[in-house]
């Protein structure tokens, strides 16, 4: 299999994907990137206009800006960019968290984002700590809007966020919005009844490479932008080497490829959901 195999999944071709953090684009230098195996060049035309061209055909690609990112769609956009309601709330910082390239399928990256069991081992001293390793039962469901939602997720975290002063049991809600888009809602350590939101837009560079673009909607109360970004990058830097050591790099959809446990209920459903949507890009399809 060639790494840069082209994508034939309509659901991905006709969807919007983040291809750059706008703050990373220079007005003078074209920016090179890749989406679904297609090499792209971003040109800045004047201060506000961006043009995205395919390197292979030179054709112009649909592009737009939102949430501080540049988005592209290789096909015909069938639906709008994911709507993040928290981005409308005035008492939140809206931040891009730094685009992190990871040498693994973006689907593996989404699955890692949905996983609590690794907190004590990968994010030791921050999002978890031995011996508090147990993943209590939680609920997972497929909503009418065709999103996967995991609720009643609880985990003890020594330093749950940039403003946390002590360890506490954090409530999480996970939502898989699209195959390469996943959101996390977690209790704010200051206003405990409200939730901070991280939406992870994963750019499928090719089947075995991705760039994770976190979009952070954090309550301003008691926090600062640099601290939030720094925390996000600290956590992601801990995940990256683990993700890059997963074999195979693509996400296997065959239920017998790996061994799930109850803590993986949301991942089991995510793989099934991808199968049902016939998403194959970045996956190893199940044998029939």
């Amino acid at each position: 299999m060639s790494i840069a195999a082209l994508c034939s999944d309509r659901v991905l071709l006709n969807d919007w994907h983040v291809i750059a953090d706008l703050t990373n684009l220079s007005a003078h230098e074209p920016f090179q990137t890749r989406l679904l195996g297609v090499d792209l060049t971003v040109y800045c035309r004047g201060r506000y206009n961006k043009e995205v061209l395919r390197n292979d055909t030179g054709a112009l690609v649909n592009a737009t800006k939102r949430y501080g990112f540049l988005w592209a769609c290789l096909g015909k956009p069938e639906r709008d960019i994911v709507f993040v309601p928290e981005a409308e709330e005035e008492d939140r910082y809206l931040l891009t968290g730094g685009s992190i390239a990871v040498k693994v399928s973006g689907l593996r990256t989404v699955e890692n984002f949905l996983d609590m069991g690794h907190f004590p081992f990968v994010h030791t001293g921050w999002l978890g700590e031995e011996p508090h390793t147990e993943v209590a039962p939680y609920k997972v469901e497929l909503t009418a809007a065709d999103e996967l939602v995991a609720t009643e997720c609880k985990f003890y975290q020594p330093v749950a966020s940039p403003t946390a002063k002590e360890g506490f049991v954090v409530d999480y809600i996970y939502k898989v919005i699209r195959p390469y888009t996943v959101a996390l809602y977690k209790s704010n350590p200051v206003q405990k009844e409200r939730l901070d939101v991280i939406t992870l837009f994963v750019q499928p560079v090719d089947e075995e490479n991705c760039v994770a673009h976190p979009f952070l909607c954090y309550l301003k109360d008691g926090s600062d932008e640099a601290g939030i970004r720094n925390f996000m990058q600290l956590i992601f830097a801990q995940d990256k080497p683990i993700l890059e050591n997963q074999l195979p790099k693509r996400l296997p959809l065959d239920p017998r490829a790996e061994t799930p446990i109850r803590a993986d209920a949301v991942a089991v459903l995510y793989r099934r959901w991808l199968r049902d949507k016939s998403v194959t890009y970045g996956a190893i399809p199940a044998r029939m």
Partner: protein
Amino acid sequence: MLDLAKSRWHPIAAAHDLPLRHVFHGQLLGREFAVWRADDGYVNIWENRCLHRGVRLSIGINDGRELKCQYHGWRYSNRTAGCTYIPAHPADAPARTITNRTFAAVERYGLVWSAEEPQGEVPEVSGFAEGKLLALRAIPVNAPADVVAAQLTGYRFQPSGNIDGSAAKVAVEASNAFSVALRSSEGDASTLAVLFVQPVDSNRSVIRGVLDSEVEGAARLAVLRHHNELLSRLRVAVEAEAAREPAPAPLEPIIERVSPELAEMPEETTHGRKATIRVQVTRKWSAADGIAGFELRPLKGLLPTFQPGAHIDVHLPNGLIRQYSITNGPGESDSYVIGVKLERDSKGGSTCLHETVREGDVLAISEPRNNFPLRRDAIQTLFIAGGIGITPLLAMAQALNNQSLGHELHYFAQNQAQLAFPEKTKTLGASLKPHLGLSPDQTGAKLREILSGYGPDKHVYLCGPGPMLEAARAIAAEMGWPETAVHFEYFKNTNVIDDSTSFEVALARSCMTLTVPAGKTILEVMRDAGIDMPSSCEQGACGTCLATVIEGEPDHQDVYLNDAERKSGTKIMTCVSRAKSARLVLDL
């Protein structure tokens, strides 16, 4: 050719690549291995991925006995590669067998050998004496193995005894697609070198050379450098030649699928034995010869109150459930301390606790249950312990000692080294009476002596091996002790259970009639009907699943009830006992 290669043995590492607690990333025919040596010397060669999420085990932690995955902390055992612990579910961990794929491993000629589907033995090299060889530095070459082997027939080097010479004659003694044996001679010096070619992938190889004699000191360095330079030069030539051919496609090793049971997400355990408390093993030590002490502290909150004589169910990482008495004295409520004897005929419970469970591990335990309660209204209380039977009695003796109530703790054991928890028994002072090394007859005589002189308000508590309890109970009866003053707890029920009968059980309060068929217990049938009945040992020894009989004749098969209780016909242990009558009415 590479198909044939699967059945052959190949070197995949040098023995010195596996130092203490290291995990080596091995490769053979496109497949990756996690290679690690346990502290007992055993070399493990495993598929290089955790069965859970595919993370490379070569980045895992070798703790000397197990390999721990970096991602979710799953532990895999030395030798078997079976998963011993899943931290996300400390209560019901791997009751199923999750076992990583292992590959054959042989250490020979200073190299570690493996094969995908080995046939026969590691190649025999005449003239190689084990332990007196010199393994050269491995040289990776980007070329197919057969191309490398063919080029190696032309390898020219000096014998180790004349490394500075330049006129050595080199003869090919043997060669095939994966090895070449060469003898270099000059003057009196002669060295046999065997160069094995490890096929890493279709277009990648590693040359692993071994010389027939060890070389010491500075000369050793010179010899290693000599071959290093020459083989590196050969590498450059081979790679240049191989680059002229189109590179063969990389091999795609087949990763085996897991079994269908493992692919199913396991349900939460539905058995009635609940383990609601999570404890951490904060201390494990040798409490006596063959007895391990475990200190268990709660992960959060406080441990429930216990009484002397109480036991807990410990849910083990291997899925077994075992009962252990709490040995704590009164007020020692920050942790539970249990003592576990390594049983010679262990079915996996005591072996698991002795060998697998260690400090830092999390275990699930039940709330303490007390089916062996201690009366504290006696004038004199005798405790008679045999071996590990000390554990509940130790808690009891400390309780009476604390209240300055009269008691004696008679402790039978083979020798001083087998007396458990000396730091605890020491606090009992003169009331501790050890009896060491007695034969069965001598034990009988000693029991007679201890149990002589029964008087009102005296009670005796017995715990120990079955034969000793039988003897003590018989002697007590003979010496005039009423059954109400004789309290005992068996470790296990050694009766052969007859479950061939079939009968009806009516549950008076639940208004339910159930049929107990042959092969099923009353407890199982009640559980199937949705009745939540507490239980613990489930073999008729601990007393947890006791029920009151309103009507019918029980067929007692337990070791918990005493003779008077049996005769009364009003009590039954629902885990093993059955009915002699066609129908039994229980107060449930």
